[in-house]
């Protein structure tokens, strides 16, 4: 057992941190206030390989192992959670399933565009009546002349308005099926952008499919495999949400430590008060526990072991840590923490999303319990 980072991982981490700290962090406040996605930063990130994190080196990608990819997400999140989520959706929920399930032709056609900044990925699964209950989705895909005609509505699609390629799930004759849908497909309309509490740099849109013709060659996997593809992609992305939670919590702690040293009350820095020290210590303890959990889960993934249940645990635990830590770190700031000129105000709102997106905490609890009971021969339902 050796829990140290490899030399290569250390090098990558430093590179990620340099770029994120220098380029992304100073823009965080502006991204939140303007509610504009950071297009320029995302383009700069292309040259760093952030769009191609998981693409194998043979295909000119970075070929990061899962743990190093988690280090990337963590550093992105420490700099800005909106930017981090945009890239996490792109890599975990679009590039990865294409790598895992795409035909050679599909990969040749889309991977270079995804890897080198021409197409950002989005993941269109949720519908008005199908949130936690994904199997209730009603978007249809009917075969017609070598095409599938997609009809239906998707909501809360992160990256929706920015994406060039949308991994979309619809019900075909053989069951729920995944499709690679290009943004300019006739019949696809990007609609309402949600106004959100946090993560305000991420465009989160409604998509309308009205007889959108998708070439049969753009079906990812076989008919009826869609749910398996979606759930597989969500395993990685849930682990990734844990890394975002880690980065978010670390940043919140960092802000609170600095503030508590600088803020003088009762004749000294508030850092000298035991109540503050306890908040800080508890935050650090949770952060380190989360880091180990991610490390262990990423190791399972990197060594080819199944990690689905573990990913749900990371998502459940991580999002709770991020929320509770950001809440307490805001408390350390007192009245200043409620003001928009302090980063903690933004981080608190941003972190709150993590207990909801990509499967609420309640769904993670169900999945964890289901696996435990399944091992004992009992099937439970949500």
């Amino acid at each position: 057992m050796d829990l140290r980072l490899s030399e290569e991982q250390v090098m990558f981490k430093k590179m990620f941190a340099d770029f994120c700290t220098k380029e992304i962090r100073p823009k965080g406040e502006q991204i939140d206030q303007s509610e504009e996605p950071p297009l320029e930063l995302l383009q700069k990130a292309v040259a760093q390989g952030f769009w191609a994190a998981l693409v194998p080196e043979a295909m000119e990608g970075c070929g990061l192992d899962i743990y190093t990819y988690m280090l990337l997400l963590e550093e992105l999140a420490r700099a800005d959670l909106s930017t981090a989520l945009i890239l996490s959706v792109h890599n975990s929920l679009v590039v990865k399933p294409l790598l895992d399930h795409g035909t050679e032709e599909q990969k040749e056609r889309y991977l270079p565009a995804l890897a080198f900044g021409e197409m950002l990925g989005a993941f269109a699964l949720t519908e008005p009546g199908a949130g936690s209950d994904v199997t209730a989705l009603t978007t249809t895909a009917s075969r017609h002349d070598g095409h599938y005609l997609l009809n239906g509505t998707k909501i809360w699609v992160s990256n929706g308005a920015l994406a060039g390629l949308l991994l979309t799930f619809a019900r075909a004759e053989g069951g729920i099926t995944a499709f690679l849908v290009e943004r300019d497909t006739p019949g696809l309309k990007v609609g309402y952008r949600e106004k959100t509490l946090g993560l305000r740099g991420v465009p989160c849109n409604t998509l309308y499919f009205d007889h959108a013709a998708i070439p049969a060659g753009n079906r990812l996997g076989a008919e009826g495999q869609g749910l398996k593809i979606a759930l597989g992609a969500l395993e990685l992305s849930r682990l990734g949400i844990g890394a975002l939670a880690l980065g978010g919590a670390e940043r919140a702690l960092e802000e609170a430590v600095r503030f508590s040293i600088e803020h003088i009350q009762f004749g000294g820095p508030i850092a000298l008060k035991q109540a503050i020290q306890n908040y800080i210590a508890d935050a650090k303890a949770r952060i380190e526990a989360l880091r180990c959990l991610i490390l262990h889960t990423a190791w399972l993934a990197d060594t080819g072991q199944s990690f689905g249940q573990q990913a749900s645990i990371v998502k459940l635990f991580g999002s709770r840590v991020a929320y509770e830590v950001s809440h307490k770190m805001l408390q350390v700031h007192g009245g200043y923490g409620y003001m928009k000129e302090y980063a903690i105000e933004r981080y608190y709102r941003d972190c709150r999303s993590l207990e909801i997106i990509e499967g609420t905490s309640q769904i993670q609890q169900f999945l964890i319990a289901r696996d435990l009971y399944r091992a004992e021969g009992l099937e439970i339902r949500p």
Partner: protein
Amino acid sequence: MDFSFPKEYQLFRRMVREFCESEVRPLARVIDREHRVPHETIKKAAELGLMGVPFPQKYGGMGGGEIGYCILAEELGRVCSSTATVIGAHIGIAAMAIYLDGTEAQKQKYLVPLAQGKAIGAFGLTEAQAGSDAAAIKTTAVRDGNHFVINGAKVFITNGDIADIIVVMAVTDPSLGAYGGITAFIVETDTPGFSIGSLENKMGIRGSSTAECVFQDVRVPKENVLGQFGAGFLTFMKSLDIGRASLGAACLGGAQAALESAMQWARAREQFGVPVATKQSVYFMIADMAVEIEALRSLIYRTAWMIDTGQPHIMEAAACKLFGSEVAHRCINKALQIHGALGYSRDYEIERGWRDQRITEIYEGTNEIQRIVIASNLFRPYGLRIPT
């Protein structure tokens, strides 16, 4: 023991609820977006006597006492935290300070128009380096003939920019420290030298302005010293002590609104073929919310009763603020979770409630300060002084 509300309080609550439902709730979203509570809303509240609920009728008030005031705060908190904050700062600390420590002449001159809502009040204590450590204020008031000349800057002042009258704490003798060296003054905001600096851009209660108030050679007649000269620290401590019960009441209203909204959504939203309200993950959250709300309601109105009957209440009032804000936090946070992604959307009122709630754990004495207050009171009989 009789826990029922007397008839007049029941009628009062009905009147306040009608006002809140018809005049405030429909505007709550616009108030948040446009960062102001319309003057018209305050005027209507004043016409109903709501701007002076706790004070005796001879001072232009309604004679509702702390119980009446908590009813008002609860009902306002249920529909719009910004409006609750504007009216709360006006009644609970600004007018309250004058009611508690003002001379008869000061009450006639200032409390009457405040209670009638003809003037708006603010309370100026906090400074950039004096938040929890209120004794560290640097604003000074220097005697000059029949006047005091005030210089300094106050920050985070609720209503600062809309107030006609502001109660200000200033150092009158730096050598005496907090007890003896700080004096409260009543300042009319049209006095030359008073100006508004920056306005804060906040996470929530965005309809309630939070202003920097600058005092540059502001001359105040000596008749405007509030309470005993040098005893300003006691004046604001007394005002804040009472104010804390009503802060808890506003939290009670916010928590109640969260419960109502969560129940409504959980009944309407179907997943897995059934309303999500039928899932234990959801209805246990609802049950926990209801329990905490009931406990809070009992604490608030018992404390209000203690205040109205002249009993010591410092610890209980601090508990109202501390427990109330934490209950409100847990309730609104659970309500948001039950709403799922929609709870994260600014199109639903849960999101606003969540942002608005967060300040209740901080303002008018952070929850850490409340714990200090409570522990100090617990240990005092044993002769042990709790350091901050």
